[in-house]
């Protein structure tokens, strides 16, 4: 398994290195999109969007959003790309189950995407003049959000396997994500608060906002709930993918996109 992860890392590194112009384009696109949002944030977000309250939160929210979009589209994009280049079946003819292979591919892609996002963040901070300080403890709620995002990525991937394409759904999800990541569930109380724990990634994003925007300490209960939320969504995604993998094989529809 470790050998496969190293091979996936190398695979991703080669793609990033050899096709650096695509990465460069991605950096420019992400930065320009932010700049557009930055200039017109009041108009776009109105009064409802929470991370519009503080520029720091806007930056963190945007970076988190672009990272999560990358993760959520990862499995879907990999399946589509592999089918197009004619290597999808080869991923399935392996002693490693394909979920493991796709997860390791997604994680290794994420490692390099962190670098890309890091560059975008530096550009954004330079543009806005707001130099953020990041606490290492932020990694914990980030992990919960990433776990939930992988769960959704595999759920979208399962639809791709069954229906061959899930791009429209992925498109809708990308923008509903902006909503999910910004619902202020950490301010909800009573029953609402418990219901908030059920929404994917929201709890983890709330813990991050608490840490960054409100400068409050780490809420361990909320963090525990966020981890539980992430693990449950991750498990649901994996379960759905496993089901659709078997269903696709039963229908004889693997490949041929």
């Amino acid at each position, binding site marked *: 398994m470790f*050998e*496969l992860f*190293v*091979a996936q890392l*190398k*695979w991703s590194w*080669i*793609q990033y290195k*050899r*096709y650096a112009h695509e990465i460069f384009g991605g950096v420019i696109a992400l930065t320009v999109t932010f700049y557009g949002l930055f200039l017109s944030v009041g108009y776009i977000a109105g009064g409802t969007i929470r991370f519009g309250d503080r520029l720091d939160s806007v930056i963190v929210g945007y970076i988190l959003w672009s990272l999560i979009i990358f993760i959520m589209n990862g499995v879907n994009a990999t399946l589509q790309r592999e089918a197009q*280049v*004619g*290597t999808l*079946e*080869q*991923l*399935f*003819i*392996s*002693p*490693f*189950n394909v979920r493991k*292979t796709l997860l390791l591919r997604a994680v290794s892609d994420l490692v390099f995407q962190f670098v890309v996002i890091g560059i975008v963040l530096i550009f954004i901070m330079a543009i806005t003049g707001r130099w953020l300080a990041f606490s290492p403890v932020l990694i914990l709620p980030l992990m919960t959000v990433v776990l939930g995002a992988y769960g959704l990525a595999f759920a979208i991937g399962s639809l791709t396997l069954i229906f061959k394409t899930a791009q429209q759904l992925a498109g809708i999800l990308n923008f509903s994500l902006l909503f999910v990541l910004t619902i202020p569930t950490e301010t909800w109380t009573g029953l609402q608060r418990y219901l908030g724990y059920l929404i994917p990634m929201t709890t983890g994003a709330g813990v991050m906002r608490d840490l960054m925007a409100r400068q409050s300490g780490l809420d361990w209960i909320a963090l525990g709930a966020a981890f539980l939320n992430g693990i449950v969504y991750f498990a649901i995604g994996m379960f759905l993918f496993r089901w659709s993998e*078997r269903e696709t*094989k*039963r*229908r*004889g529809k*693997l*490949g041929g996109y």
Partner: protein
Amino acid sequence: MQVLEVEQLQKTYRSGGKTVEAVKNVSFNIESCEVLAFLGANGAGKTTTIKMIAGLILPDRGVVKIAGRDPHRQSIALKSVGAVLEGNRNVYWRLTPEENLEYFGVLRGLSGYVARQRAKSLLERFELMPKRNTIVQNLSRGMQQKLAIAVALIHEPQLLLLDEPTLGLDVEATQTVKRLVREIASEGRAILLTTHQLDIAEELSDRVAIIKQGEIVAQERTDTLIQQFSGDSYRIELEQELDSDRMSKLSAIDAAIEGKTVYVRQTEWLYQALEILKPLSIIRVEKDQANLVDVFLKLVKR
């Protein structure tokens, strides 16, 4: 040793309210060192069968065993399979041959070190060493296909599935692939070969299985099958026209004459015909020999 055992495979699809029996009770085995040509018209069920063997399609009924293991239940069985699938590139076009071999080696369960070692020796063997650092999309079609076969062999599988391995290749590349298939089989591997190029199937296969509308209609050793479909007549080509005396003697043994060619219907009359023709100069004596195209057409069209 049986490398592949396929027993009573069955697959039915439902499409647009209709039920299509794609594969019906297909059974065959392949031993090590053996090449089985799996032939059939388009839509006969070849690809569905191959994909069921590779674990890519779940059979409704029946069993596949690769080196004694079921790929649908024991994923480790897939360590014993290498596949080059039709219509697929099977390798990453954005990587070099060496990178492809190393990546797929690990994906098939090798350690990084072993994958690198094997990659080097396969690049040498498949004469791809000078192109090892060239991006695959810049290689010729023949080289890409050689690489796809090399990638399928990186983990030294006992069973190799080759679906149309010579499709779209030029004459030289086809010869190379044919040579490689022979070499790979002689190393002790079992090969399941599908192709529409029946001359290649005839040349490479030890046995043939012909599938028609999902059912196997013939399964035999290639030479035996061809023999079964070959006639018992002979053709004798002469250097000069026959005289009337010889023509009447040949007619008496039911031989047909067309110009300088004599057709003898049975082996027992061949030597009598040769006796009659003595001492005329003979250019060629040839038995009516079918080929796999004749066999295939007779079986598939009937």
